[in-house]
């Protein structure tokens, strides 16, 4: 590593630590503020209930009925607890401190509590609010309302977790924006100089720097180029001289020159002199330019995920045969259906139209769809706009994937796809979280309007950033059934789809998005907790996917990565059985995240390696279109299979069944692709 690179790493690490600290400060202040402001609000609920009951009891005493003689107090307490289960202890004590009526808790918890004014006491596990009452005949009595002290702690814990979610979202968005900046024109001279110096360290003088460069670099790039030019000229002249000498001498001279020739050959092995064209950054520039618009477009789409069912219920009007429960799911189902159906068709279309044009068309449709959804007044209108949003998403996805495939080769495909998956995962972590909070604060329609604006910004960035389309070498035809039949004859492709892609999605959707929320609720958790667990999956994906992809590309272990992913998924299915409670579910989600992160990008990269002849014949669009169609079938099957097992056996069994499915898929995959020892280069 060159000194410049070491300095770059140190600056980046320090800047990251500073960013963490800068985001942590408002988060810590928010946590303290929330505690300070919400604790009295929480206590006020008990006070309101107390005052409400107080008016009821004191009405009795105005009729000279002593509190001890009241009937129906137990029933009243029971009714209150049914409506407000958080108040576990309700009691009424008289002037002597004797408990007249009590529901929940213990007598000891309220003994001796006789304040002159309403007051809050910590009594054992309870936080008890005691209010003085007037009893008949001028006597005094006390009403005690106790809630478990953990309840307030639980509320505060929830708010802290929400603050942590905001922290993670802000951090991810910042890092994504910084990546866009790092991939931009400003960083290029530094990246180039770093690479040229590193190569120079190793005796590779083939690279040249861009001399029209930043001020801080001064004349360094030019002098470096001159240095390399001189040594290259020296080498070229010597080689030419040797060539001339060899041509101009006889056999004896050649024998004498043999030593010089050997030295020159050794020189060529040790040093690199031939000038190469300037190399693109580690990931091709078009991919870095795609990153910003793709991220903004996907965030715009994901913003509405968390509130779409609720928003649908606001535009729903009763119709025969269409219940509200069914109606709220329709926009999501329609969106998914259109994405699944259009992807195989659009793969080839994007080759014909050009990636940039397809991407811009998708973004334009997205702007229209979000804007339309923001103004929708009826369910039919909303469905129309969500259908259009599905078409927009499919267009942008196939165009984005096309750019990735066009600008990566066998050595970098997993990493390029990991970048693509990484952007999708970051947006899926950040979008719903921000969307839910924004919809709470601004309203669903304003948030959808904001989504339209974000998508429009994505359009501007794509329009300015992406290079104009160049005509594709081979004009892609429309997708035909015969193409799918031809692909079905490639055994490894079929196994990759049926035992790799489809089970991976069945496990992901069935496990993570269907079973986890239900099990968390069954275990006494909240939907917010389920959401955080799903977010944990996304965070693991974002962190591990690029590392796993790099490893798979470097070691050519794509098949091994897919196999490892399937095996870890199988293990994740067993974890909820081995570790009961929320800890087991969290551990399973974590492991599933690692499993998916390891396998998702290598799996896509493997398609190109397995189907080289078919890609040459049918085009990448068609091959990947069919692959994505099978993959998305897994999306649809996941919840159906999980629901069927839950209905028959139960939640734990459903986890185990999904794990077993992953194990069977791993066996089939391993049997076809060979076990971990096989390198993908030979696939």
């Amino acid at each position: 590593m060159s000194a410049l690179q070491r300095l770059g790493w140190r600056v980046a690490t320090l800047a990251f630590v500073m960013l963490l600290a800068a985001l942590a400060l408002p988060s810590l202040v928010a946590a303290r503020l929330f505690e300070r402001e919400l604790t009295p609000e929480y206590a006020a609920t008990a006070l309101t209930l107390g005052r409400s009951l107080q008016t009821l009891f004191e009405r009795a005493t105005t009729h000279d009925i002593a509190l001890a003689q009241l009937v129906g107090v137990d029933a009243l307490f029971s009714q209150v607890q049914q409506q407000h289960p958080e108040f576990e202890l309700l009691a009424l004590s008289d002037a002597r401190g004797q408990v007249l009526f009590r529901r929940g808790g213990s007598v000891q918890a309220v003994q001796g509590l006789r304040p002159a004014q309403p007051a809050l006491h910590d009594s054992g596990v309870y936080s008890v609010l005691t209010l003085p009452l007037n009893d008949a005949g001028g006597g005094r009595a006390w009403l005690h309302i106790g809630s478990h002290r953990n309840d307030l702690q639980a509320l505060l814990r929830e708010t802290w977790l929400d603050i942590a979610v905001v922290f993670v979202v802000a951090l991810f968005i910042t890092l994504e924006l910084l990546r866009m900046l790092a991939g931009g024109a400003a960083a290029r001279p530094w990246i180039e100089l770093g690479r040229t110096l590193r190569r120079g360290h190793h005796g590779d003088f083939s690279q040249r720097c861009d001399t029209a460069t930043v001020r801080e670099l001064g004349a360094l790039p030019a002098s470096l180029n001159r240095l390399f030019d001189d040594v290259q000229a020296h080498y070229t002249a010597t080689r030419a001289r040797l060539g001339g000498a060899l041509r101009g001498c006889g056999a004896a001279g050649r024998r004498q020159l043999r030593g010089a020739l050997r030295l020159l050959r050794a020189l060529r092995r040790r040093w690199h002199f031939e000038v190469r064209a300037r190399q693109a950054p580690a990931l091709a520039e078009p991919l870095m330019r795609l990153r910003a618009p793709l991220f903004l477009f996907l965030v715009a789409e994901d913003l509405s995920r968390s509130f779409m069912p609720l928003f649908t219920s606001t535009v729903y009007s009763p119709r025969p045969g269409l219940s509200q429960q069914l109606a709220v799911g329709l926009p999501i189902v329609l969106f998914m259906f259109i994405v699944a159906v259009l992807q195989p068709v659009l793969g080839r279309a994007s080759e014909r139209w050009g990636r940039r044009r397809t991407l811009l068309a998708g973004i334009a449709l997205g702007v229209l769809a979000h804007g339309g959804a923001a103004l929708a007044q009826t369910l039919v209108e909303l469905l129309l706009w969500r259908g259009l949003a599905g078409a927009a998403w499919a267009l942008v996805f196939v165009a984005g994937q096309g750019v990735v495939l066009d600008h990566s080769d066998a050595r970098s495909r997993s990493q390029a796809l990991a970048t693509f998956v990484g952007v999708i995962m970051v947006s899926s972590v950040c979008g719903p979280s921000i969307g839910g909070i924004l919809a709470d604060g601004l309203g669903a329609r304003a948030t959808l309007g904001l989504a339209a604006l974000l998508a429009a910004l994505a359009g501007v960035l794509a329009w300015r950033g992406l290079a104009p389309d160049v005509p594709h070498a081979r004009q892609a035809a429309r997708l035909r059934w015969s193409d799918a039949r031809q692909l079905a004859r490639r055994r490894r492709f079929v196994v990759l789809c049926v035992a790799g892609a489809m089970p991976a999605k069945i496990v992901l959707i069935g496990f993570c998005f269907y079973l986890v929320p239900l099990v968390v609720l069954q275990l006494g958790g909240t939907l917010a907790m389920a959401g955080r667990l799903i977010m944990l999956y996304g965070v693991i994906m974002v962190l591990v996917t690029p590392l796993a992809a790099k490893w798979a590309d470097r070691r050519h272990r794509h098949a091994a990565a897919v196999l490892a992913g399937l095996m870890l998924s199988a293990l994740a299915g067993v974890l909820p059985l081995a570790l009961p409670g929320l800890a087991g579910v969290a551990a399973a989600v974590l492991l599933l995240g690692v499993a998916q992160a390891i396998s998702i990008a290598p799996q896509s990269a493997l398609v190109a390696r397995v189907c080289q002849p078919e890609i040459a014949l049918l085009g990448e669009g068609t091959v990947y279109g069919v692959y994505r169609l099978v993959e998305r079938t897994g999306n649809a099957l996941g919840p159906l299979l999980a629901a069927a097992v839950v209905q028959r056996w139960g939640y734990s069994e459903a986890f185990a069944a999904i794990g077993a499915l992953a194990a069977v898929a791993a066996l089939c995959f391993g049997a076809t692709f060979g076990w971990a020892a096989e390198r993908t280069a030979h696939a």
Partner: protein
Amino acid sequence: MLLIFGFAIGMACVLNYFKFESTLDHLQRSRIALVAHEIADNAEKQLTIGLALADNPALQQQLQSKLKVDPLIAAIVLVDAQGRTLARSGSAAAVADAAQPFTLSRVVHDAFGEVAGSVLVRYARSSRAQQLARVRNALWRSGGLAFGLFVGAALLLLAAARRRLAHALAADLRVVQARVAEADAAISDVEQRIARATP
């Protein structure tokens, strides 16, 4: 880059503020719902014994007493199924302010499950607005402080990096120059051999 960090800190503050607002709303609404439920339950009990909603002589007094239960409550109105006001408590302005969003309603059903009326509880926004302003200001202050500290630290880091940049570049250049000199010497060696072989 500073713009990005500023945006991130601002976004964290805005999102935390919205989160606080929704949590506060939730807590206050659940508190007010408690009162609305109780009035509606009493009204439903009255309906089950055959009395009409308006037949309760103590209704007005009951609404008046519930008004004092929570300082947030500005007005309580009981309306029948047609929306006619049967009883109310609270200031006339608060009662009339039907458009304000801080209204919680609870439907009253009769013994047959039909809608007999509704309890509307309007609650004040002033204390809530003060509370929100307090939190908003504190969050912005902390965000501003974090950004200020970040800018300061970033400037220090930049200055330190600039100082070290020249050293790093010089060190790298020295290594590359040594490599080039090494290669030059090797090429010269080849040249000498050629010269020796070709008199």
